[in-house]
């Protein structure tokens, strides 16, 4: 069965909510030349994984001063998922995790954002919680004690079942893998020294502090 913290590969998707699609504006011009047809995924590798404790500190890469804090949830895969039909897809989900997907600010989605999204510790994650209907969740982001964002998850372009069906059309997700359901385009930013809290009713909360990069 699933460990308390997921051990597999973590994938995420962009432009999967109405607010982000509105915010990024027209996608017809270069470099995009049209709205995406398939889900646009990214990968958060093992070094980004950060099991959150009260004292967790995330060090930014050298020279970085701020970080985007994108609250999201991840679908934790319970059994191998390939070529799923949407109406069967949720049977492959063992639970949810609350996630803070941290990125150095980047306005363009044209090229893979590896330096921006894959620095050490850039994915604080909760333990696995039972699966609930995420359309009823509101993700709350607080920076230094002030609520900076309340994000209801009821505006997903591909809700979990459809997202799993579309992604598993070309790649198998295995037990323990995680699929994050989407991050806000230009999520709220936190600076060095800020404390961040992400929470959602029923999923608990994540707390961490942003610190500057440690030079070599």
């Amino acid at each position, binding site marked *: 069965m699933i460990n308390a913290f997921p051990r597999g*590969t973590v*994938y995420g998707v*962009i*432009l999967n909510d109405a607010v982000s699609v509105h915010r990024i504006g027209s996608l017809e011009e270069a*470099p*995009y*030349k*049209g709205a*995406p*047809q*398939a889900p*646009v*995924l*990214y*990968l958060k*590798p*093992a*070094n*980004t994984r950060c099991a959150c404790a009260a004292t967790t500190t995330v060090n930014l*890469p*050298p020279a970085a001063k701020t970080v985007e804090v994108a609250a999201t949830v991840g679908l934790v895969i319970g059994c191998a998922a*390939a070529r799923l039909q949407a109406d069967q897809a949720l049977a492959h989900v063992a639970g949810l995790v609350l996630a803070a997907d941290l990125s150095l600010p980047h306005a363009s*989605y*044209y*090229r*893979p*954002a*590896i*330096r921006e999204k*894959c*620095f*050490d510790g850039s994915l604080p994650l909760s333990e696995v919680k039972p699966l609930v209907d995420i359309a009823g969740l509101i993700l709350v982001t607080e920076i230094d004690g002030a609520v900076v964002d309340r994000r209801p998850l009821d505006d997903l372009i591909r809700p979990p079942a459809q997202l799993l069906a579309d992604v598993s059309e*070309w*790649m*198998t*997700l*295995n037990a323990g*893998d995680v699929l994050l359901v989407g991050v806000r385009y230009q999520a709220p930013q936190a600076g060095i020294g800020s404390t961040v809290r992400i929470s959602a009713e029923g999923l608990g909360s994540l707390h961490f502090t942003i610190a500057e990069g440690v*030079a*070599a």
Partner: protein
Amino acid sequence: MKHGRISYNGAVHQVTEDSGRVRLADGRLLQEGDFQWLPPVEVGTVFALGLNYADHARELAFKAPEVPLVFLKGPNTITGHNAKTRRPADATYMHYECELAVVIGKTGKNVAKADAMDIVAGYTVANDYAIRDYLENYYRPNLRVKNRDACTPLGPWLVDAADLPNPGALKLSTRVNGKTTQEGTTADMIFDIPTLIEYLSSFMTLNPGDVILTGTPEGLADVKPGDVIETEVENICCLVNTIVDDQTWFAPV
């Protein structure tokens, strides 16, 4: 020494090369056909480089990048030597990419160029297939192009770094059904191995089992079901893969 991983007699074995044959740890020698090749390492994070050879960048009508164009791959896409790779029915342009693969052997963070080779365990060969029909201009090359199941053959052998003192001057070649279609040399990489290790480790920790696929030179060609693709890097190994259509891939046993 050359190291491999195979599935034999109901178990996974680490093997070595012995005069062109496969040797189990207890000394038994095996014939090709008696076992199945697995990727030579259980991969951790897999990095791949786009446009890392100037001739290939020109071939795709891009100017060479100023910082490494890196993308990531999941374990689902890695497969072994002599495996089959699916060409979906709706694909019109699917091409191979012969690449030198660098396997990390030690943990490294903020590794200077001068020390970079100290964390390399060894080298193997990758074929980083792409299906260009699925390219979209978002996090390009997007995962639907580059992270398909069994679309990144790796192996068969991992050559110890100590046995390959100059990985920056190796010939790469690809043959499709025996005919050479791609030739190049690792000397033409835009960002060489020490530069890539310094760059990646400047913001993330590299770990044993992480793999860097260092990009491909020019000479792309469409591959069709039934084609046998050999990707070879001099002094490392030759990786063989066969393209199959949907009917063969999904055929009931």
